[in-house]
């Protein structure tokens, strides 16, 4: 294919972005003096700043391109990832879980596991999370280099090392603070750089109704064709969406993945921390108007023989991820192409910075300070955090080269989440809401959940077991298998945790005060008027979610 051509103006836009993020890293270094500044951005962010960073940490370019491509492949069902697959979990985090996290003054999610359970559960989660972040960070880097090579014609190695070094410089200088600043800048660049593509697509095709008329019937609905998997593009029933995506994968990711939850920990007080995911939920609900819309526009144009639009094919296999870059190449003139490419670059780099800032925190506190050097001073931990950033970046570059040698590795992203986050959500949910769950129950439940998820994955991959056993249906897609595997891993983790907890020693009520429902301290926001309370905004968010689902039913 012919690469998207860049003019001098486009290069100027890209260079402005690199200069800005490096300049911000250098500027913020003077405000990064203590370990709390480095790892938790000084705990002084407003809920708006933390909320935008919360949603942006998840809004990577891999997600943007992947979801636009998935819309082309599966239709409007992909909106479930943004609505039922995100909003209830984000609201649950803000209303029920954040008081336990924030009030216990922990620095990471494994830190909560230590307080609620014990050291071995913390270290187990610390290691699995650290491995997951490096893997995801490397895949992110690999995907970025692949995109720039395929669509802009850049050298694979140069684009990967240039962005990795930039992220290394600004995260090493000022830690989470610079990661949050660049995530917020990325949020605006993505909207300004990519929303215009959807606007111009709508103008060209004529109207929203015309787009729906041009795509297959099963692709234009959200729920009304979910009773029979053969009637929708994703080949899944409503039960798989609700249990697998809406409950396990979504709650597992949004309530326990430290990458996103760390942003809420940077808030200045408990109310701001609780408002962080709730405000973020409004921004999250808007993302389909950028991603799903562009995927549907690409599909509608492809089905019109006169449009001249088509996706890239590699050896006869359609590259769905090319939908968004091909639309950028179709509509955006010089300058705006640079902005569109910068938006993707910013998404990749912010995604990598988010993973690395979560990795350096978990490594420093939950592995190094917990296992290797318990007597380390705060200044020593700050130095360790900076060193972990550089090492983490180098390891993720190594992961990226490994990913390059395995062409299907990008498909494994959702699989990795189902290995680590889905069982962890069962441990967290039981631990936070049932006081008799024991440390041994949590540890062995987590081992069983993670082990079963990996076994199911390998079993289907190598044909030891049929996918039919997992999805409980004769037909399924890869996505449906992911959803159902996450559900079973959650269930196995929960059952083993409960079973072992019946026979092992529990912690006393005194040890669990502030960590378990029913044993929590009085909320600090008791005197706040009703219209300023997080619950009020959560209800508003829920109403918007319901209305969107009804409208696109």
């Amino acid at each position, binding site marked *: 294919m012919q690469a998207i051509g860049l*003019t001098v103006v486009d290069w*100027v836009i890209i260079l402005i972005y690199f200069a800005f993020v490096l300049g911000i890293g250098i500027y913020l270094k003077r405000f990064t003096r203590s370990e709390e500044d480095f790892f938790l951005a000084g705990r002084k962010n407003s809920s708006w700043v933390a909320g935008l960073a919360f949603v942006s940490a998840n809004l990577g370019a891999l997600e943007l391109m992947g979801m636009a491509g998935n819309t082309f492949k599966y239709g409007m069902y992909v909106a479930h990832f943004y609505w039922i697959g995100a909003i209830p979990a984000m609201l649950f985090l803000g209303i029920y879980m954040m008081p336990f996290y924030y009030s216990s003054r922990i620095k990471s999610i494994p830190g909560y596991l230590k307080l609620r359970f014990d050291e071995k559960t913390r270290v187990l989660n610390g290691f699995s999370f650290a491995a997951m972040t490096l893997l995801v960070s490397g895949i992110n880097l690999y995907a970025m280099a692949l995109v720039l090579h395929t669509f802009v014609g850049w050298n694979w190695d140069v684009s990967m090392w240039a962005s990795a070094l930039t992220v290394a410089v600004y995260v090493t200088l000022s830690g989470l603070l610079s990661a949050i600043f660049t995530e917020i800048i990325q949020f605006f660049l993505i909207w300004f750089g990519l929303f215009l593509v959807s606007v111009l697509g709508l103008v060209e095709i004529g109207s929203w109704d015309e787009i729906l008329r041009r795509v297959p019937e099963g692709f234009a609905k959200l729920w009304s064709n979910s009773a029979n998997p053969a009637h929708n593009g994703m080949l899944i029933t409503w039960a798989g969406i609700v249990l697998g995506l809406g409950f396990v994968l979504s709650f597992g990711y949004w309530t326990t993945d430290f990458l996103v939850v760390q942003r809420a920990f940077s808030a200045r007080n408990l109310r701001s921390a609780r408002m962080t995911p709730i405000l973020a939920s409004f921004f999250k609900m808007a993302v389909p108007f950028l991603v799903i819309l562009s995927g549907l526009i690409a599909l509608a144009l492809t089905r019109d023989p006169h449009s001249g639009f088509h996706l890239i094919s590699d050896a006869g296999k359609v590259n769905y991820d090319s939908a968004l870059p091909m639309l950028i190449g179709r*509509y955006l*003139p*010089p*300058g705006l192409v640079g902005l569109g490419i910068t938006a993707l670059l910013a998404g990749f780099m912010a995604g990598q910075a988010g993973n690395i800032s979560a990795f350096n925190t978990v490594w420093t506190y939950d592995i190094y300070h917990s296992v290797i050097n318990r007597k380390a001073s705060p200044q020593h931990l700050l130095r360790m955090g900076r060193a972990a950033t550089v090492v983490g970046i180098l390891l993720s570059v190594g992961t990226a080269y490994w990913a390059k040698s395995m062409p299907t590795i990008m498909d494994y992203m959702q699989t990795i989440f189902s290995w680590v986050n889905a069982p962890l959500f069962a441990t967290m949910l039981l631990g936070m809401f049932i006081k008799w769950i024991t440390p041994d129950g949590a540890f062995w439940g987590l081992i069983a959940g993670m082990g079963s998820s990996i076994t199911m994955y390998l079993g289907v991959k190598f044909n030891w077991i049929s996918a039919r056993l997992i999805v409980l249906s004769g037909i399924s897609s890869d996505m449906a298998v992911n959803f159902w595997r996450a559900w079973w891993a959650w269930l196995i983790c929960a059952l083993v945790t409960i079973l072992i907890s019946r026979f092992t020693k529990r912690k006393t009520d005194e040890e669990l005060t502030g960590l378990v429902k029913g044993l929590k301290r009085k909320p600090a926001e008791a005197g706040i008027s009703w219209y300023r309370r997080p619950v009020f905004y959560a209800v508003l968010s829920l109403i918007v979610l319901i209305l969107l689902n009804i409208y696109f039913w």
Partner: protein
Amino acid sequence: MAPDAPKMKPIWFFVGLILLTMGLVILLAGLYGLWVRPLGPPKVLASLHPEIWWGGFMVLAGTVFILIGRKSSAE
């Protein structure tokens, strides 16, 4: 914090600055392409000149964010 400690500029200031700078470059490039010579091959819907009105919109949005940043800085 000590009274003479440096005060951090709010994030909105930086958001405004980057939108303003990029918007200005896109707007000026669009005007150059309109009045002098096009900078690249024509794209679909090029007659709408999206670079001019979108660049102008970014300049406007950037200015608003800088003003918000200055205001919260002063507070």
